[in-house]
């Protein structure tokens, strides 16, 4: 589904290379995890795939179901089925959470050539999905992420994911800033979306999220490259031994 080949990326402003040849292939219906020390390029990879400005791709390709992701605008990538759950969900004062969600859902439908969802139908769907993530009506009325706690923000990301039904989901440190209960709730939300050929790329520092969202493949990223890939056991190895051993091995 997602094919990344020899991806090289630098920061536009500083001429500083961040990704130095990433190769990654994620098949339909699989869950991949990327772990790695701070500054290894994990978040950059997620931003570059989603189309954030400020990065320049100097070499390599990234395709989603054969479509050249890097040639698309961010909204076109979303329409193609890509979704990034942000590490730091953005606050948007003045835009109601419900309005935001309805706008996004209808933009997707429009891109697919479908009619807009009626207000009643939308409300019914959103209520059911919000309830399972313990998002109350008040959170839906408030401006997007404004005044939300860390956990509320992350649950709100998962709600968006559930509403937009993407084929390829990238979760960028979705566990950061969450307590154990909140993490479980978020993981349950993600797990409910597994299946139906949907793929996930879970970026995390810690193994504990992977206890709840079981990955098929675990990759270790360091200094802009994927240095090691393996099964779920690789995450356990990191948890007990740290990155040092693996990095030495990789070098």
């Amino acid at each position, binding site marked *: 589904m997602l094919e990344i080949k020899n991806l090289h990326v630098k920061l536009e402003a500083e001429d500083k290379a961040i990704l130095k040849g990433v190769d990654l292939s994620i098949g339909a219906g699989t869950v991949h995890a990327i772990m790695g020390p701070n500054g290894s390029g994990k978040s950059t990879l997620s931003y570059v795939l*989603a*189309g*954030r*400005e400020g990065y320049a791709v100097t070499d390599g390709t990234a395709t989603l179901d054969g479509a050249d992701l890097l040639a698309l*605008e*961010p*909204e076109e*990538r*979303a*329409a193609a089925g890509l*979704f*990034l759950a*942000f590490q730091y*969900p*953005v*606050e*948007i*004062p*003045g*835009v109601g959470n419900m*309005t*935001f969600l309805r*706008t*996004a859902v209808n*933009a*997707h439908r429009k*891109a697919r050539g479908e009619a807009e969802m009626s207000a009643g139908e939308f409300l019914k769907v959103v209520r059911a999905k919000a309830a399972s993530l313990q998002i109350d009506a008040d959170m839906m009325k408030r*401006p997007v992420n404004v005044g939300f706690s860390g956990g509320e923000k992350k649950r709100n990301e998962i709600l*968006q994911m559930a509403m*937009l039904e993407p084929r390829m989901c990238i979760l960028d440190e979705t566990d950061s800033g969450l307590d154990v209960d909140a993490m479980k709730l978020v993981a349950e939300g993600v797990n409910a979306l597994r299946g139906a050929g949907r793929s996930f790329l879970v970026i995390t520092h810690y193994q504990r999220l992977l206890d709840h969202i079981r990955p098929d493949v675990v990759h270790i990223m360091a200094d802009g490259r994927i240095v090691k890939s393996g099964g779920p056991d690789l995450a356990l190895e990191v948890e007990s031994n740290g990155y040092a051993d693996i990095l030495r091995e990789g070098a």
Partner: protein
Amino acid sequence: MVALLQAKADFLAARIAGLGFEATGWTVPARDAALARLTAMGLPGKRDEYWRYTDPASLTAPAPIPAKVFAADDESPAFDGIDSVRLVFVDGVFDAAASDDPAIAGIEIERLATAARADIHWAREVYGVLETRGQSPVARPLAALNTAFATDGVLIRVTGIAALPVALIYHHTSETSDAILHHCVKIEPGAEITLLESGPAAARFNAVLEVEVCAGGRFHHIRLQGRAHERRAATHVFARLGDASAFKSFTLTRNGRLTRNEAVIELAGDDAAAHIAGAAVGDGAFVHDDTVFVTHAGQRCESRQVFKKVLKNGAVGVFQGKILVKQGAQKTDGYQISQSLLLDEDSQFLAKPELEIYADDVKCSHGSTSGAIDDTALFYLRSRGVPAAEAKALLVLAFLAEAIGEIEDPAVAEDIRARLEAWLTRHEGR
């Protein structure tokens, strides 16, 4: 010095040449006094501190700069869905055929032009009176000019809760029209009315609205200044608020070459509330100036000023806002915010917020910001599939939301929001 004074006098004489008023009726003393005030003050010039950011030359020139008539039929008329008493002015001239019969329960409505012929009238206590009070500490010569030479307007006295809003509808049909209208509203104790104004009025428009709100009275005012690109306007709202009264005014400005909206509000009684807000959007040759002066004289009064401007392609926004808290005006709660969203680097916003406080137990805050669209928020919206143009419009409307939020009637607020959205769509990518 003498030459300078002479030049000032000549400048004024040229502006008021051809203007005049009938020498009979109750307005004559007020008009005479206004002319004397105007003569003493002289017309404003760009060297005046109060006109530092907005050049008044086109407002003080003998003749208006011609303004092309703007006739677009891509929007429904303002306040179309609201049942109201409609009073229509075409280039400043009352159009009886297009207007409703103003005989409705609880309100007296008369035209200034006809009422002025009487020897005595209730409006004598308002006409030019609030304007005079508003001349200190800052001179407002264009308002004095208006009081002296207004050709028409409406005089509204409300004794109960008005069954319908009064809608003043202004049409601009002549490229060289130069209108001077003066309205007075008196809200008797406990009475309530909504005044709607819409349209560009004339190539050049000088408007004064004086509002006396007696104890417990409520005044709502919604103004849409029309979409004519080339018109110029100087407007003044003078309000005096009695005990526990309320004043709410919102202005939407889209387009217009020059707009100077002054509001002078005096919280004279205790426990009164005054909210004044504006949303202005301009593209290209657009100067929009909100100049507000709120005086707290009574105790426990609340005032809010919320002004937002969206500017692009060299448009200029100006805000001069002052809160004056007089000695003894304890427990005052004053709030003022003026913000601009600059959609490109050619546009500019000039703000001069001021607080002057002589009481020791007050709460006053003010803020002014100028910024661009938040790139992070834009990316967030786009990453959720919202196309760039739609995402930008959503963020611009979010920026304007606080000002629109000052509108009490949700249907009117939604209508204004839709008109702003339509404007953004029309001006997208230009």
